[in-house]
């Protein structure tokens, strides 16, 4: 499973000259309240200047106030994902993993800190601008597939293009091309109920790809699938990564995370450790 990520590992290793023999790279500065993680100066890395990060998060805090008590879901997260990287974010439930994914996917904004997506600061954007960014820059894949049951496969895939105001003939053309890319060219007129779980998730993947986004954000994409279908989806993600896409995979399963080139472990709202796949 991890074989496909060999080239990305090579890239990461070449860049990360600070990597320790164990592969654990504590390059993330996240310990503001506790100072538990040693501080590493990423900006000092000369190679980062030439590389264009898709995700550039600095000192992100997210605080919820459900009552009088403040709950810190994120406690100063700083992380970078470069173009063409395949990164997995792992963590137990309650770790801040979901909050991080929401902010990463521009579904929410941080309480403090900055987040640049494709070089654009999205940390203080309005709801309308965020919707626009999500439409243009991010392709979501969810655990629940989230396909609209009444629409056929291709009409599900064309949805993001409708919000991008793409004319109908072009929408259909692009939706069909996207479905072909995930190997579902024969199933374009099937409704979700007529498809297997794996096939539904492939439709969702096609929908995420159809806008040609800068970032593919997959949240537990294999959580509802049997092993064979899960392998299929992970294979597809690896293929996409190999063809140059930036993929962030959120999961709690180590097996799934293993396909990524780099694994970030999150705990108590901080990046706990980082590991580059062997």
């Amino acid at each position, binding site marked *: 499973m991890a074989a496909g990520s060999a080239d990305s590992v090579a890239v990461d290793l070449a860049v990360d000259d600070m990597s320790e023999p164990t592969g654990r790279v504590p390059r993330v500065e996240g310990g503001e309240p506790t100072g538990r993680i040693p501080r590493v100066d990423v900006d000092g890395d000369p190679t980062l200047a030439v590389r264009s990060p898709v995700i550039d998060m600095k000192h992100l805090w997210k605080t919820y106030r459900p009552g009088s008590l403040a709950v810190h879901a994120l406690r100063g997260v700083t992380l970078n994902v470069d173009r063409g990287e395949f990164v997995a974010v792992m963590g137990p439930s309650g770790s801040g993993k979901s909050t991080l994914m929401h902010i990463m996917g521009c579904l*929410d904004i941080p309480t403090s800190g900055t987040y640049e997506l494709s070089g654009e600061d999205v940390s203080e954007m309005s709801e*309308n601008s965020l919707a626009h960014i999500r*439409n243009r820059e991010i392709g979501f894949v*969810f655990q629940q597939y*989230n396909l609209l049951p*009444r629409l056929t496969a291709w009409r599900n895939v064309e949805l993001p293009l409708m919000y991008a105001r793409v004319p*109908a003939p072009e929408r259909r053309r692009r939706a069909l091309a996207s479905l072909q890319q995930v190997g579902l060219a024969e199933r374009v007129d099937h409704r979700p109920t007529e498809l297997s779980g794996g096939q539904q998730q492939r439709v969702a993947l096609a929908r995420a790809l159809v806008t040609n986004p800068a970032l593919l954000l997959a949240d537990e994409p294999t959580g509802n699938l049997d092993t064979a279908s899960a392998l299929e989806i992970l294979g597809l993600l690896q293929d996409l990564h190999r063809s140059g896409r930036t993929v962030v995979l959120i999961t709690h399963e180590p097996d799934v995370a293993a396909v990524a080139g780099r694994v970030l472990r999150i705990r108590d709202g901080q990046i706990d450790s980082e590991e580059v796949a062997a």
Partner: protein
Amino acid sequence: MRWRDTFRSGFEAILGHGLRSLLTILGIMIGIAAVILTVGLGQGAQSTVNSAISALGSNLLVVTPGSTTGSGGVRGGFGSASTLTLADANALGSKRVAPNVIAVAPQAETVEVLTAGSSNWTTSVVGSTASWAEVRDRQLQEGGFFTRQQVSGADDVAVLGSTTASELFGAKSPIDQTVTVNGVVLTVIGELTSAGSSGSTNLDDMAIVPITTTQQQLFTGTFATSVSTIYCEANSSSGLSGAYQEIDDELLAAHHIAQPSEADFTITSQTTIASTANSVNRTLTDLLAGIAGISLLVGGIGVMNIMLVSVTERVREIGLRKALGAPPTDIRRQFLVEASSLGLLGGIGGVLAGLLGTVILPHLQSNPVTISPLATAVAIVVAIAIGLVFGVYPATRAARLSPIDALRSE
């Protein structure tokens, strides 16, 4: 999202919940149909009343005696209101006095027993002049009306209403038969064509006799000298107000009354009768339309209820659409289009049901139903507006949903 896609999504959502949409549409439909039909019934009743009033005769002014206050400030009791006389009627008939009045028919009436052979019948005996038939717009079924000469000669003749004729003579023709009233033998010279009833008066049950005959031979007391009503026909509808003025001036002068407010008579025109009747009608129509409007309001609340259910049920879908990049405006618009489409479909259905009602209702009750194209157009616009207005709150709620909470919900 483009408008075309928004409309398509809206219609797909409506079709996707067929039964639910149908029930919602039914609510609006019933409201619209009820409004259209009550307004149509009201307009139909109005035209019925108008035609009944114009059946009284055209361009008619009716002069009736009023209650009077005597010169010493003593208010007249019973009988004091018999202030109109045949002389008044004759004066109004003069072209010089009232150029706008083309025909005058005074009327004095009492209830008498008519005897013909072995049968008798109690009815109102009306004394009038030769122009009565013209002024009251009545036709003769058989025979003829009495002439000016017969009036001036105080001939012993009578014209019978169709009911009176059949009560006295059965199926036989009443022409040239005789009826006896108060010992006076009258020859029947004509029978009126049936005219139905006006208000509580049966227009077919009466005997019309030259007023000279009633005054000289049939009636006694004040009935012999005064008339109960003077019908005046104006030359045209535009001459109506001129005729009114002329009658008013002449009668005030003839009765030696200086203040118009002390007049001992009342002049009523068809227009005033019609407007009174119509205002009653309009009040009723407004009341019914108000009730129908309430049912429309209930229909609107139905739309809101269904849209709120729809929003709650589709929270995940809304969340997904937002995640895929739908801005709040697109979400709001989609739900508004859905709500107003429900209204539009309800409006069209309501108009169709209303049209069906105009076919069925006349078979169930006597009043005609009139539906104007304007009312139809307004009904459809109102239906869409109801959908829009009651869709605003659910649509805004949908637009404000946080995509995270929406996606997380089950």
